[in-house]
């Protein structure tokens, strides 16, 4: 327990780091989809609300709703809908972001090793070109990146440890963002006109500690995201250009604390901050700190 408290303290001390955290609920939350509710309840409902702070004093409020259904002891599916509201110098803009459909298959393996597979997709509600008063907004203010993504992942559970790998692959680009730094009045955000993004690869390690009375669970975890290539945009001259430094590694720390009211209901607090970030983050994934409160129920 002392170690856990120490972790919490260290996270708090590092919360001012200006760096990239997880933004939308894409690959960053893929690991959570491996964990399904107790098998005696087929239905699960999760309502989360995440507050975040990003670059240039942009603040985020990102609630989401997830419904999951356990078909049998091995297979479950979940549907998730996200909303995002950003506030900053450009004003305030909120909109539904993406829908996720994720399937989760648990292999029949001998204990203590348990393997599971995750396959799903992300479907955007916007083309990432929301405006305020006719002014184009950077991706930091967009509720979605405007891409249809394939999400795959593999999880190994070994005793108290979980090891997740994942891939988020944009397969169809609907992004029609029209933000130009040249015409915006600020240098805080790079131009992202007709933005095209590259895939992300994920690796997450989670340690699970549960108190003896099983009322509390703590899950410190480390999340590595590698952006597999440089993103690109179309200049004011209609020429496509790569964005230097937009590829590379992001390393996030995340601590989850869960209180179980009973076998059906629980509430979860999740705080996260990045320690290593990419040089440039045109996709607006610039959270320097996030705090989420999540309520889960099974029925």
């Amino acid at each position, binding site marked *: 327990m002392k170690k856990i408290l120490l972790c919490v303290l260290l996270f708090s001390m590092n919360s001012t780091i200006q760096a990239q955290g997880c933004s939308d609920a894409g690959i960053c939350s893929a690991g959570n989809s491996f964990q399904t509710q107790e098998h005696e309840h087929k239905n699960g409902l999760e*309502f989360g609300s995440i507050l975040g702070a990003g670059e240039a004093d942009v603040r985020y409020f990102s609630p989401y*709703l997830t419904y999951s259904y356990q078909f049998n002891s091995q297979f479950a599916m979940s549907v998730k809908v996200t909303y995002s509201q950003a*506030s900053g110098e450009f004003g*305030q803009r909120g909109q539904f972001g993406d829908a996720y459909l994720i399937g989760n298959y648990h292999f029949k393996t001998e204990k203590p090793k348990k393997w599971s597979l995750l396959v799903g997709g992300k479907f955007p509600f916007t083309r990432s070109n929301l405006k305020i008063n*006719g002014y*184009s907004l950077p991706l930091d203010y967009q509720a979605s990146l405007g891409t249809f993504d394939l999400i795959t992942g593999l999880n190994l559970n070994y005793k108290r440890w979980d090891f997740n790998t994942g891939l988020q692959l944009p397969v169809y680009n609907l992004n029609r963002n*029209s933000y130009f730094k040249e*015409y915006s*009045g600020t240098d805080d955000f790079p131009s992202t006109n007709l933005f095209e993004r590259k895939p992300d690869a994920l690796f997450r390690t989670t340690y699970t500690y549960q108190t003896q009375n099983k009322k509390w669970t703590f899950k410190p975890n480390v999340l590595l995201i590698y952006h597999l290539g440089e993103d690109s945009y179309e200049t004011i001259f*209609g020429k496509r250009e790569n964005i230097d430094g937009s590829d590379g590694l992001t390393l996030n720390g995340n601590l989850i604390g869960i209180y179980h009211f009973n076998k059906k209901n629980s509430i979860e607090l999740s705080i996260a901050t990045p320690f290593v970030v990419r040089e440039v983050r045109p996709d607006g994934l610039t959270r320097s700190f996030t705090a989420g409160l999540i309520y889960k129920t099974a029925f």
Partner: protein
Amino acid sequence: MKKIILITTAWLTVSACQEEGELTHDKVIAPIEASSVLVYTGDFSPTSGINVSGQAKIYLEGTKYRVQLEGFSVSSGPDLKVYLSKSASPSEFVNLGNLTSATIYDIPQSVNPMDYSHILIHCQQYNHLFAIAPLTSN
């Protein structure tokens, strides 16, 4: 639980709105100076199914070129841009920004308007050309 979902959905629907900020208030754009020299003029004509009226004029103001849309109106579109283009189609162009009520657009210093022949109004989001103004020298 139903009430929670209903209230949440209603709240999110209501809050799917926008609020202006420091960078998105209507900007005060300096008018074309009286001493500016009119160098190019073009009358707008519409593409199929579009209504447009007005003129595009390019002025030289000191060392800076500026575009002004005069008596201008066009059918509404979701993502209209003003292009300075080398032809009547948007293939080689300079995107001067969103079409707004401002009607005056600065041409970047690195651009020589003599290399361009048209002002276009183009919907970028759906890649649809709305209006064309061929420029003639004054």
